[in-house]
């Protein structure tokens, strides 16, 4: 198992009122993303625990692109990864953001 952590400055606070969202499952080629609104509005953090070791450079690139596209200010993402491909990772991050920006019912 390898753990990685990336902290970025975000341009703005992610919209919505939910404090938490979770998407995905930990399975072969899949991952779960837990998003929590626990950070200051201009910060975001992505913590990864992955079964596939040695892909740090790819994770770094995926996370950087995600932060630039989505500006998830205030969010901490915790990922349990079962060896997902980068496209799946990007998709789950985008899904997590969409879930947390929905308003709480």
């Amino acid at each position, binding site marked *: 198992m390898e753990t990685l952590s990336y902290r970025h400055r975000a341009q703005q606070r992610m919209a919505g009122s939910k404090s938490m969202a979770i998407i995905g499952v930990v399975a072969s080629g899949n991952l779960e993303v837990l998003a929590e609104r626990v950070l200051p509005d201009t910060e975001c953090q992505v913590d990864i625990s992955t079964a*596939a070791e040695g*892909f740090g*450079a*790819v994770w770094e*690139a*995926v996370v950087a692109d995600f932060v630039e596209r989505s500006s998830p200010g205030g969010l901490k993402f915790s990922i349990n990864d079962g*060896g997902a*491909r*980068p*496209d*799946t990772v990007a*998709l789950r991050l*985008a*899904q997590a953001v*969409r879930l947390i920006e929905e308003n709480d019912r």
Partner: protein
Amino acid sequence: MKEWARQKAARKARIEAGSRHARGKAVAVTDLQDFLEAVLQPGDRVCLEGDNQKQADILAAALADVDPAKIHDLHMVQSGVVLPEHLDIFEKGIARRLDYSYSGPQAARIARMLFGGQIELGAVHTYLELFARYFVDLTPNIALIAAVSADADGNLYTGPNTEDTPTIVEATSFKGGLVVAQVKEIVDKVPRVDIPGDQVHFVVAAGKPFYVEPLFTRDPAAITETQILTAMLAIKGLYAPYGIRRLNHGIGFNTAAIELLLPTYGEKLGLRGKVCTHWALNPHPTLIPAIEAGWVEQVHCFGSEVGMEDYIRARSDIFFTGPDGSLRSNRAFCQTAGLYSCDMFIGSTLQIDLQGHSSTVTASRIAGFGGAPNMGSDPRGRRHPSEPWLKAGAEANPDTPAHMRRGRKLVVQIGETFGDKNVPLFVERLEALTLAEKLKLDLAPIMVYGDDVTHIVTEEGIANLLLCRDRDEREQAIRGVAGYTDIGRGRDAKMVQQLRERGAIRRPEDLGIDPLDADRRLLAARSIKDLMLASGALYAPPPQFRNW
């Protein structure tokens, strides 16, 4: 005095030798080994029928059992190296030289045997090319073929899987060769005559049908969200703007997703009747929902597909069928159709390099290409005009006067940036080149040449290579859709942005596609059972695909 009919005399001698082990044309399975040793001669050129679908399996097993002391150094000319016996004959020294086209399941073993020098390789062909050579310089002395049934005169019924048989028989029988057919049974009257009896010299009643691989069955349950996204991109970004009505699909999951999105996503885009009406395609089960929803006018097939027989029979307006009601497939004609009458080929591959060359050959697996290099190429000769062909030509050569401008067939590679086990689709250097060096081949086993490829579709977007004006632009357009692979991360961000502004790269958002909408609920069928139900219970999938 010059002898002008030695081939006829030789055939007569073979028939006489074979007849000692036959009753009329009928050879018993138990006598097959003796029979083959009688009709074959060392050094013969032999076509053992078998492609990526049907197999003359009984004849293959019998050939592998002949005595190498009597029969050796055969030159095999055949579409497929698929059964273990196809390679056993090389191990045993029965055969020495090989010209072939496809080797899916034996890809790893054939690679090992080529490295070990156990096989003397002629060339890896496309189907159409190998068929062509049957008539020029690789004409078989003996063809061992497969059919469903025969009558006492040797008339053959090949059933839905006619495939290569007429081509092989034509080349062999009309040029002094001997044709031996395995059939399930000998009947009084065949349902239809696919091969006339006077072209067939011996028949073996095997007591069971020849083997057919269900190669074109893709289980919708295995289609991923990313594959659905690539399918949405292809439909909205290629099928719609070019108005692709006549086409061929590869066998991958991306194209299966396209087939299953037509009645849902395609319908929403208002494309029914405007795209995907005429096909050169095997009867893909995943096409059933589109056929049932009225998208498809006509399909011509290379071969059949296990379990689709009754469905095809009940949809004769769509498929080519015989007087008996069952499908008539023909690989040579369908390959020709795909080459000259289709405006698009779209399929998957294992590796694409920076100039768009692609190959399914890796250093340890030589899968061969079957029909893909023909489907995936632009025949450069004169061709009739069509809207997509002209539009593509105009994109590639905007400065050539319209009346003098060649069109372009769309050749599209579709896939995810990372394949199975996180293996990248995009590479700096194709493993096919490494293989060519290792085997000292004159020509690397490229499947589709970069200059034939017009578009590459991944989940990152569509690269339109027609709009690239030089080598650098091509490379950056490819890097631009290569995502997080090493190739993708090595892109020149500024140049990629410029290419995007010009439409040479189109991202999902440029096409109004939200990746989060790529959902399995868009699939018109999500399981094999859904396909069966959509067919009105006419589709009977093979046991390994059942999920009920």
